[in-house]
């Protein structure tokens, strides 16, 4: 069965239809309705590198739908440390589970796992490659705020080179005709092959080092964390990272309905003063990880989300 490795695995119609499923599943994600659509199904959580939100939201999503989860656990104590290949690990977990969510430090690992597995693989991040389930929750958050995905002006800021969330998201936004502004330090620019791909697909892309110049026109500002270890020395990091920090005072003159997103964890790039503004959406975004992943789990397991959810389960 096919999984979700990159956003290319979903058509625009499929994306919209999964987002509609997610919308209907909101009361289930909030715990207001119990709807055991995935009872008897088991998710294998294979996280070969650290994850908090992605791993927990997959687990929550599965359990809210009555399914169960088995975890790889700490890589340091698993068979991986003994030198087991990814192929062998997948062969084993494939036999134990109905669907696998995976994060791996090596790029291409998710596609590799899908080629080795019979069950669908949900790519929860492969090196600096893709993170399509994050993109689905990002799209859900954008649609929730703006009521649409098409024709928006989106600033993606910070570490665009290594940030896999922005790679997958920019591909998806391009398909919906959004205008993209990439604001990053030179060292952390969007990889050339991705920019080439996007422009080949008709994207309207502007690359800049200045985060603030187009803030007033933006519908979405997507911030990412600039990591210290990407820089040769700390002075350079401090100088560069300082130019990609949002404070509430920067938001004057921005559009009323502009939203600020962040895949989290944040460090200093969004000042806490922003949290209380109407623009802040990053905590809702993190919650949306549950509902978007619920809809994806149902879709990939071939379970239809009912049109009318309330009578099916019964309120808690």
């Amino acid at each position, binding site marked *: 069965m096919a999984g979700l490795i990159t956003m290319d695995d979903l058509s625009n119609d499929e994306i919209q239809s999964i987002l509609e499923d997610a919308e209907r599943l909101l009361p289930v994600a909030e715990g207001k309705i119990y709807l055991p659509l995935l009872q008897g199904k088991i998710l294998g959580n294979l996280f070969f590198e650290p994850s908090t939100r992605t791993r927990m939201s997959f687990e929550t999503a599965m359990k809210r739908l009555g399914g169960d989860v088995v975890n790889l656990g700490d890589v340091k104590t698993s068979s991986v440390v003994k030198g087991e290949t*990814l*192929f062998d690990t997948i062969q084993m977990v494939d036999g134990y589970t109905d669907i696998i969510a995976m994060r791996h430090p090596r*790029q*291409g690992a998710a*596609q590799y796992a899908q080629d080795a597995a019979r069950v669908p693989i949900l790519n929860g991040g492969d090196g600096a490659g893709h993170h399509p389930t994050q993109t689905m929750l990002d799209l859900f958050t954008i649609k929730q705020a703006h009521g649409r995905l098409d024709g928006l002006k989106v600033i993606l800021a910070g570490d665009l080179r290594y940030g896999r969330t922005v790679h997958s998201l920019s591909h998806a936004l391009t398909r919906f005709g959004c205008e993209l502004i990439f604001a990053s330090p030179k060292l952390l620019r969007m990889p050339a*092959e991705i920019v080439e791909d996007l422009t080949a697909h008709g994207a309207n892309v502007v690359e800049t080092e200045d985060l603030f110049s187009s803030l007033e026109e933006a519908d979405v500002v997507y911030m990412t964390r600039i990591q210290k270890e990407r820089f040769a020395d700390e002075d350079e990091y401090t100088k560069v990272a300082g130019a990609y920090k949002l404070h509430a005072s920067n938001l004057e003159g921005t559009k009323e309905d502009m939203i600020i997103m962040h895949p989290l964890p944040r460090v200093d790039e969004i000042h806490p003063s922003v949290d209380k503004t109407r623009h802040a959406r990053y905590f809702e975004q993190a919650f949306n990880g549950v509902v978007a992943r619920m809809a994806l789990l149902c879709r990939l397991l071939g379970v239809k989300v009912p049109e009318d959810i309330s009578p099916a389960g019964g309120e808690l």
Partner: protein
Amino acid sequence: MSQEHNMRRVTAIRNGTVIDHIPSGQAMRVLEMLNMNKTTSVPVSMVMNVPSKKMGTKDIIKVEDRELTQDELNRLALVAPEAHVAIIRAYSVAEKMTIQIGEEVTNVVRCTFSNCITTNPREPLAHRLRVMGREPLVLRCHYCGRPQDLEKLIGNLL
């Protein structure tokens, strides 16, 4: 200079394979790609930098008593995409073949990206590069999606 003149630089072979139209200087790499540089026991003749109407100069390889298969020939797509092959039986051309590049180059080279999952030599699945363009040849790793630098790729022969 005529084709016949080029061919006469080495003796005609009775049975075997002639690989013609190899870009100048690539003959050694071609032998390497066919795994004939170390392990072969059949006679191999090679001429390098001979004049060619089509290419300016070219290399030619003659392998005696061995007929290359289409699969073996397709391995040469990376270094000699224009190569022509003639299978020789009893001193005459019995068959002609050209390189056919399919949708994928499989198990010929390893992806050049240092963080690709396929860099672990113990991972057993096939090394697969997707053909994105033919002229010039553009390849991307099936797994990590990275575009491949052909020069670097030749250093990653399997």
